[in-house]
């Protein structure tokens, strides 16, 4: 182990694992052993690098070569050429990783995808072995906890977090320091520190990647929070659907205990803190703080009315703080580098960075972390690489089922908490789903409503019944059975659900409808009054037509049609019987002359 000269970092995040990075790691280990290089080259399974689209990815240090789409059969070449002979295998490199001259390899921070990013919460993801506490320590891990316990009073800690301007990364954006301050002010012999890792938004995987790539950062931050508010027990509430995250977190907790970084008398200061993982069964509502605490207590995952707030009466009736994974991941660095350092990033009211999970119609699907105040355009085009197939950007959905859509006209908005709320969306936990011209916004609203109806816990009537009624109206509209007055009904329902639902899930459930109504009302109107879907997505509203001038009578479409509804003679224009048409689109795909259109 003493002669290590090269590190091969292979992504072991969920994205790359599902594209078989485990086999790539095994192949590296096997071939390196065969060549007798296993004492000089170390293979490390890391957390997410962010560029999931290019997975499985691996980086070879010290050169910092970024290999993308690595298959097991490519490993032999990387070992033979790069690791034995020192020749970089250029054709396997990530396509954006070469300089213009196609000869030199760019350093990673110059690659387009990373250039505008600023990795704070993700700083160790892809850099350390998450299952080795000593690697975390080598990258200044647990230094913040040491500093806090030996040099700072709990009030100093809270003041530092307040000064940094850190706000909750789970969606609401509540100042983290304030939350801690309230919990500290509550008098109790027992207090709790909890971590919300019940990431439930469709398309979001920020917290998962942090837990998979840098679990110790969360543990360290929770210990710091515990010291600040006077707690000695912590819980991470993580969904059971995140097996890799759970496993790494459990390994990390075990290691931290072995090293005396959890347990009694940490750093010889008399401070005690220990923590456990609690698994959620994947109910969206359990991401709501009071429902989450009910679930940890072993009760049904249903929200409780607030007040009393958790800072006063939370888990097991004791004062509790609950922060999101990403919020915690920022804390150790704020302690080490100071509140002023943190404030240099971001905007006046939203300091720091935000991690987004980019998904949907985007080239570089993956995980990005940018300073607050970065524009949506930069995220989508400069980092995300734009929309596939050169299609037009239509909207970005942020905040999941609680959020809304940002239309193309707001592409230059600087992303921070307040700006997003001002245009009817919200930061949310950081899922960002990109939509292009082919997405029907009414259908998107229906999709999210369908999700909330499914996930509503049923405790309060506005959410249980109200969202169901909204969904029924939306389903009617996309089926072409919309009536005059439907839009107004949706608006009335949305308003009353917003104001009367018990918890955040219900109060925000109408948001996808309201924000699409705000920017895409004409699409709703087209569905209802003209029985037409402008994006061409709602099947019930489509009709396929053959343009007789363009049709050459090749009969290809007639042979493709599964319903046999296209007729016509050879070399004469064909006709579609719209009554029998299934609207499958097979004819349109096959037509070589572009004679078939839908609308």
């Amino acid at each position, binding site marked *: 182990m003493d002669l290590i*000269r090269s590190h091969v970092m292979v992504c072991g995040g969920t994205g790359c694992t599902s594209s078989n990075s485990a086999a790539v790691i095994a192949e590296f280990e096997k071939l390196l052993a065969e060549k007798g290089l296993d004492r000089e080259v170390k293979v490390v399974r890391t957390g997410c690098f962010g560029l999931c689209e290019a997975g499985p990815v691996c980086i070879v240090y010290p*050169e910092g070569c970024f290999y993308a789409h690595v298959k097991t059969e490519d490993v032999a070449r990387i070992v033979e050429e790069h690791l034995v002979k*020192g*020749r970089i295998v250029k054709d396997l490199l990530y396509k954006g990783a070469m300089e213009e001259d196609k000869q030199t390899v760019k350093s990673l921070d110059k690659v387009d995808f990373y250039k505008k990013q600023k990795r704070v919460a993700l700083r160790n993801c892809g850099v350390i072995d998450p299952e080795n506490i000593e690697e975390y*320590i080598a990258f200044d891990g647990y230094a913040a906890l*040491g500093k806090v316990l030996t040099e700072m009073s709990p009030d100093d800690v809270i003041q530092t977090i307040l000064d940094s301007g850190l706000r909750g990364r789970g969606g609401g954006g509540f100042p983290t320091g304030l939350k801690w301050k309230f919990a500290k002010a509550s008098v109790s012999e027992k207090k709790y520190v909890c971590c919300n890792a019940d990431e439930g938004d469709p398309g979001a995987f920020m917290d998962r990647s942090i837990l998979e790539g840098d679990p110790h950062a969360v543990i360290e931050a929770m210990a710091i929070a515990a010291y600040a508010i006077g707690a000695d027990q912590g819980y991470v509430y993580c969904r059971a659907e995140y097996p890799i995250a759970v496993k790494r977190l459990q390994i990390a907790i075990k290691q931290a205990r072995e090293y005396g970084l959890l347990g009694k008398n940490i750093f*010889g200061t008399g401070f005690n803190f220990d923590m456990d993982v609690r698994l959620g069964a994947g109910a969206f509502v359990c991401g709501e703080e009071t429902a989450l605490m009910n679930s940890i207590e072993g009760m049904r995952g249903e929200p409780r009315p607030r007040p009393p707030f958790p800072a006063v009466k939370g888990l097991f009736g004791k004062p509790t703080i609950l922060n999101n994974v990403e919020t915690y991941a920022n804390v150790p660095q704020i302690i080490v580098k100071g509140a002023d350092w943190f404030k240099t990033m971001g905007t006046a009211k939203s300091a720091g960075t935000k991690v987004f999970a980019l998904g949907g119609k985007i080239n570089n699907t993956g995980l990005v972390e940018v300073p607050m105040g970065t524009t949506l355009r930069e995220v989508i085009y400069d980092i995300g690489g734009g929309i596939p197939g050169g299609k037009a950007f239509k909207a970005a959905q942020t905040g999941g089922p609680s959020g809304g859509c940002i239309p193309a006209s707001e592409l230059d908005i600087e992303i921070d908490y307040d700006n997003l709320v001002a245009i009817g969306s919200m930061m949310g936990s950081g899922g960002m789903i990109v939509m292009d011209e082919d997405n029907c916004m009414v259908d998107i609203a229906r999709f999210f409503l369908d999700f909330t109806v499914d996930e509503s816990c049923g405790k309060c009537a506005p959410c249980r019944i109200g969202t169901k009624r909204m969904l029924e109206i939306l389903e009617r509209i996309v089926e072409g059975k919309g009536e005059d007055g439907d839009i107004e009904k949706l608006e009335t329902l949305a308003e009353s659900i917003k104001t009367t639902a018990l918890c955040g899930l219900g109060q925000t459930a109408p948001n996808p409808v309201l924000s699409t109504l705000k920017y895409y009302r004409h699409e709703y109107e087209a569905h209802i009054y003209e029985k037409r879907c402008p994006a061409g997505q709602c099947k019930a509203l489509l009709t396929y037509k053959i343009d007789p001038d363009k049709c050459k009578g090749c009969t290809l479409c007639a042979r493709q049609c599964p319903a046999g509804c296209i007729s016509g003679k050879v070399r004469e224009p064909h006709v579609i019987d719209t009554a029998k048409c299934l609207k499958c689109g097979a004819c349109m795909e096959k037509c070589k002359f572009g004679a078939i259109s839908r609308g």
Partner: protein
Amino acid sequence: MKSLAELQAIRNRMIDQVSMRKDDSIDTRVVVGMATCGIAAGARPVMLEFVEEIKRRGLENVTVSQTGCIGMCRLEPMVEITVKDQEKVTYIHMSPEKVARVVAEHIVNGRPVEEYTIGYQG
């Protein structure tokens, strides 16, 4: 963990194992020519000696890597050392015995070992 010193000790022990991953922390790069010609001339023991010597001295911010044929096969094993903001120095006909001196004089003290360089012998 009973003290900060203990944490610091782990950090110190680990830091040189991970320093190659910190892009901006690298001050000195040692590149060994490891094409067929280099390997045949004995480049591997030279490279391993560099790794070991750097480890022995506990030098941070120095990486050892390899490259292909530098082009003058008759002068192998060749080693290029680049110290940040300075011109690259190329050593030729290296052997494991010469490594300690190069590390001490060039990497630690900043004075290239003239007599081993390509300019001196070539």
